[in-house]
């Protein structure tokens, strides 16, 4: 059964239609990369998947939850779907440890001791176990982003969404974040990522989806898609990336 099912999704901001009938299935354990130019609708699609944007028509189902307007149902969905943003969005008034423990404590009612254990585990996973007591503004961008990933992982999500998570980072810091994501992928996490890192998409994503003008223009297994683009738009896009 598909972990994520997207059917004929339409989404407009005012008069501008940004998603024009998008359908996509993601199986459990699959890593799907969404690529495309700015404004192609890839970030919007990702945000629709966990209900941060509401859709005008179509259907989205993820981890057994239907994306609705119902707030209680949406919260249930979000305990099982993690999202990481381009701008990290750590809580600046809380330490790294508190950032990670807060949601498990108050949303899932995990005990303090249990939450602490989980926080240490996920920090260890992203290679920042020594930063438990640090505050976000004491960390580099790459470290902050790894904490953001750890914070999502602490909820034990079934699916992880990544929204251009390395776009604000320099190449070196990008690398350390991508390494963490690659580790997650190897461990079998279902992932959907919007990315400009073509190399990473080619290497780690099982499927790459090229979006263009609000539609899925082309999709396929990553190696094939990059090696042999079928549409002129993708050919152009792939070529322009090789700088």
């Amino acid at each position: 059964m598909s972990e994520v099912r997207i059917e004929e999704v339409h989404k407009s901001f005012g008069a501008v239609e940004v998603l024009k009938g998008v359908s996509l299935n993601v199986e459990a354990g699959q890593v799907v990369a969404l690529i495309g130019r700015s404004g192609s609708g890839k970030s919007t699609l990702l945000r629709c998947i966990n209900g941060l944007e509401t859709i005008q028509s179509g259907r989205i189902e993820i981890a057994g939850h239907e994306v609705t307007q119902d707030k209680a149902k949406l919260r249930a969905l979000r305990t099982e779907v993690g999202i990481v943003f381009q701008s990290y969005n750590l809580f600046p008034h809380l330490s790294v440890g508190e950032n990670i423990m807060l949601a498990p404590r108050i949303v899932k009612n995990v005990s303090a001791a249990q939450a602490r254990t989980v926080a240490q585990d996920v920090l260890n996973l992203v290679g920042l176990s020594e930063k438990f007591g640090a505050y976000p503004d004491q960390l580099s961008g790459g470290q902050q982003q790894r904490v953001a990933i750890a914070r999502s992982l602490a909820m034990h999500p079934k699916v992880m969404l990544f929204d251009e998570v390395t776009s604000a980072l320099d190449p070196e810091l990008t690398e350390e974040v991508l390494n963490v994501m690659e580790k997650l992928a190897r461990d079998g996490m279902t992932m959907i990522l919007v990315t400009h890192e073509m190399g990473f998409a080619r290497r780690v994503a099982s499927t790459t989806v090229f979006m263009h003008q609000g539609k899925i223009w082309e999709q396929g297994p990553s190696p094939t898609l990059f090696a042999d683009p079928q549409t002129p738009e993708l050919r152009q896009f792939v070529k322009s990336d090789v700088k």
Partner: protein
Amino acid sequence: MILRSFGLNDLIFLLESLRWTLVLTAIALTFGSIAGLVIALLRVSQLRVLRILSGLYIQIIQGSPVLMILFLSYYGLSLMGFQLPALVAASISMSVYVSGYLGEIWRGCIQSVAKPQWEASESLGMTRYQQFRHIILPQAMRIALPPTTGFAVQVVKNTSITSIIGFVELSRAGQLINNSTFQPFRVFLTVALIYFAVCYPLSRLSGWLERKLHVGSAH
């Protein structure tokens, strides 16, 4: 009528009356803060009608002199059969005045917490209450501290208006002394100096908090 000279006893009387200025300020800030927080939260409510009503409240309070609120609670309520002591009437009107301003100051502080903070906490499954309680208000408080301290300075000075209904705080005490000494320069300069001695440290505190909390720095 024999005029006496402004002396040590008068100074002591002034300092004792300062206590009532400070008590009234404390009461007004306490109750005004509680009401102001409610108003601020209503101002950012998801329900339009609550936003409009609380906005109207703020407009009315900010658009009318404190003196009118004071007269309404002192003379108005007594007409309706509530004979309020001057301290109570003064407390009520000053609290109302404070709530109208703090409500608006704090609304701004709440709204200046970065929008992605809402999205990040929402995406972790938090309820709106949990978002306010754990994410938004703690950050808003930090932003609010300097302007709130600055506003407290205004409250200290504006309590002087309650002298009009006979509440004997610092200004009223100065008037009483002047009535029997008729040395307005000595008396009111002393009164002004005492106000300054209270307000200046508060202003400095506000400035210090602003630098200390490096408000406005990007997170």
